[in-house]
């Protein structure tokens, strides 16, 4: 039984340490600690980089206006585009750094993990980009979780309406079965499109696929008027590259997952017109957007994408909520203030979170890929 003496000694040692070092409660520190969790490495790293750039612009803008009223510290942590590190980072930020609020992440599956830690620890969570319907409403204490972007329940129908308005009555859906974002988007699109009398064929792929030969052929066989890619840019780009010619000039539509310059870099020369719904268009003439685009481009040497815009707006919403709080370092109060946000003007539109699922109902933007992304029209969610 010798190993067990060792074991017990080891266990007891750890047990003792575990009880040591109690460190008071919240305190009423005068600085607000904001944890930011984004994918800085891995598959979604373009998203993370853009969102963080956008946040830096927002932080400096706000500082110039002496906002928020309590000075804040942003602590950035990388979730590596994977769920488990995201949960650990959230634990660390909450338990060790004692953050008052967490902003992140930008994809749905990973935000789900972060939000669970938030709810269970009573820390407000605010996601710039997770669009899956359930992330802000599930579990106990969902009132701690909000988002500043639209949800797939809006994006799908908006896309469907856009497709029908162009006279495209038969669609072939190309769905990434491995991404929650894609399956949610595809489903909400299907419901709206079929209800409006459209005809729909579904095909599937996995996010890890490299060879899309068969998919390309299946899509071609479906002989639809439009191809809807429900997935992310990395796979869509590859698919388009491999489809060269096979898809003729059939128009392609998609959601905000396609919103990355890498889409074009991977796809090469594409004959098909590509449209996608997203959070904002860099050529939107509104002064707010133009000023943001200008400063962003000057600072980072390239125009902002949608993730930069939502990252920027997330901090605006947070600063606005802090302004309405008597005691912003009280996490419960801060969560309530975020959920009560009303008509905060951001570069992605007017953001109001005072509804059942703490999700803004703002118009989506349809853009066209044409040497950059060009604004086509705005589509309202309902």
């Amino acid at each position, binding site marked *: 039984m010798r190993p067990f003496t060792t074991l017990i000694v080891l266990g007891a040692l750890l047990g003792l340490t575990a009880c040591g070092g109690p460190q008071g409660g919240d305190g009423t520190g005068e600085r607000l600690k904001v944890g930011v969790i984004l994918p*800085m*490495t*891995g*598959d979604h*790293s*373009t998203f993370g*980089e853009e969102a963080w750039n956008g946040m830096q612009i927002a932080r400096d803008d706000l500082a110039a206006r002496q906002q928020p009223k309590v000075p804040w510290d942003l602590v950035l942590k990388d979730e590596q*585009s994977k769920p488990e590190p995201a949960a650990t980072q959230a634990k660390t930020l909450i338990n060790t750094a004692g953050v008052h609020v967490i902003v992140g992440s930008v994809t749905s599956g990973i935000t789900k993990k972060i939000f669970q830690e938030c709810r269970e620890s009573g820390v407000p969570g605010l996601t710039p980009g997770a669009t899956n319907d359930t992330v802000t409403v599930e579990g106990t204490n969902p009132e701690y979780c909000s988002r500043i972007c639209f949800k797939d329940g809006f994006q799908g129908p908006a896309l469907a309406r856009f497709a029908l308005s162009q006279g495209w009555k038969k669609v072939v859906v190309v769905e990434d*079965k491995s991404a929650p974002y894609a399956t949610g988007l595809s489903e909400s699109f299907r419901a709206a499109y079929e209800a409006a009398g459209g005809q729909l064929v*579904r*095909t*599937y*792929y*996995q996010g*890890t*696929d*490299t*060879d*899309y*030969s*068969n*998919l*390309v*052929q*299946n899509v*071609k*066989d479906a002989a639809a008027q439009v191809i809807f890619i429900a997935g992310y840019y*990395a796979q869509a*780009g*590859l698919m388009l*590259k*491999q489809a*060269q*010619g096979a898809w003729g000039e059939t128009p392609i539509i998609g959601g905000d997952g396609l919103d990355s*310059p*890498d889409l074009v*870099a*991977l796809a*090469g*020369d594409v004959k098909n017109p590509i449209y996608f719904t997203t959070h904002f268009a860099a050529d939107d003439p509104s002064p707010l957007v133009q000023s943001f685009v200008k400063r962003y481009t000057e600072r*980072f*040497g*390239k125009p902002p994408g949608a993730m930069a815009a939502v990252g920027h707006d997330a901090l605006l919403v947070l600063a606005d909520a802090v302004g309405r709080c008597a005691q912003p370092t009280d996490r419960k109060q801060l969560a309530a203030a975020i959920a009560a946000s009303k008509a905060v003007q951001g570069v992605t539109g007017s953001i109001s979170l005072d509804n059942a699922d703490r999700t803004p109902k703002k118009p989506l933007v349809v853009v066209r890929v044409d*040497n950059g992304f060009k604004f086509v029209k705005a589509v309202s969610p309902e």
Partner: protein
Amino acid sequence: MSDLHVFLLNGLGLGAIYAFIALGYTMVYGIIRLINFAHGEVFMVGAYIGYFALRGLGVEQMPLPAPWPVVLAILVALLLAGLGSGLLAVVVERLAYRPVRKAGRIAALLTAVGVSLLLQNLTLRLFTATPRPGPAAREWIALESLPATAPGELRVDRTVRLSDGRSDTDEVVVADSGVALDEAWRARLAAEGHQGVFRRVELTKQQHQLFVIGMLALFAPTLWWLVKRTRTGKAMRAVSEDMDAARLMGIPIDRVVMATFFLGAFVAGLGGVAYAATYGKVEPMLGFLPGMKAFVAAVIGGIGSIPGAILGGLVLGLVEALLPLLLMRMGWAEAFGWTDALAFLFLIVVLLVKPTGLLGKPLREKV
């Protein structure tokens, strides 16, 4: 309904790639009974070498008549990828595999898993996870010989993100095919110090696939000849029959093993460039799944047998292309989402029904 021949070509094209990788697996396994898990990563490194060779060497700018600069660039890239992969495999063999050759099969296999992980993570650190476009041949057009009629579209080829978050803009200007340049563009390019632009040679996937199949048709007999007819080849076969006896006959075991690794990796490197070019991306995880599948192919064909590896590769490619198609036609709409699962299921079935594979000899346990 689509024509079956498209799926057949897809299957054969993919199968040919599997065959290219499977050859290395089968040769190494045949000689030292090691599943070289890192072989898929060697394949991936080959793809990276091809990518950098095609965009960085400037072979296209050589003053030669029309198709030759492009053809030469492709050949140089393939050769470099093959040599680079071969060299890497030799280094790995010398530093990691040789010390554990006597330490037992589990230790050797674990070392291989470790090397595979090491190469993956190393490329991940060096080149980031962001996929780059696949290696593509380009032609070089000097500024003065560009057609000048209408303003065209030009772009800086691609921004590559570095691991520390900075952006590194690649200074290669690429013109879309059929592009013409007006004077303003010319002036701007000249002002920025460019002497011309690259233009992608757009090959369709079908052309790529035919190219890969052609390459296999060329290489398979060559390899066969090398193993059957040359001194080194005979030594390889002797070592794989009985290593101790071969040593007693004065065959330099270490050199023969090294040659085997080099040859297998050389072929895999060629396959890597072809794979990345056909499917359009280069990334650190590129080798993982094809590597695993190619091992499956080697097992299906009968591990240790060179014709077996080629047959196994082609069979697996065809199974992957046609089985989901068949299932879909039978009414299972989601069958294509399960392609990988079906490939692994196929492996398990083959292992259970005929563990020695289609063309393999049973390996006897030595008591």
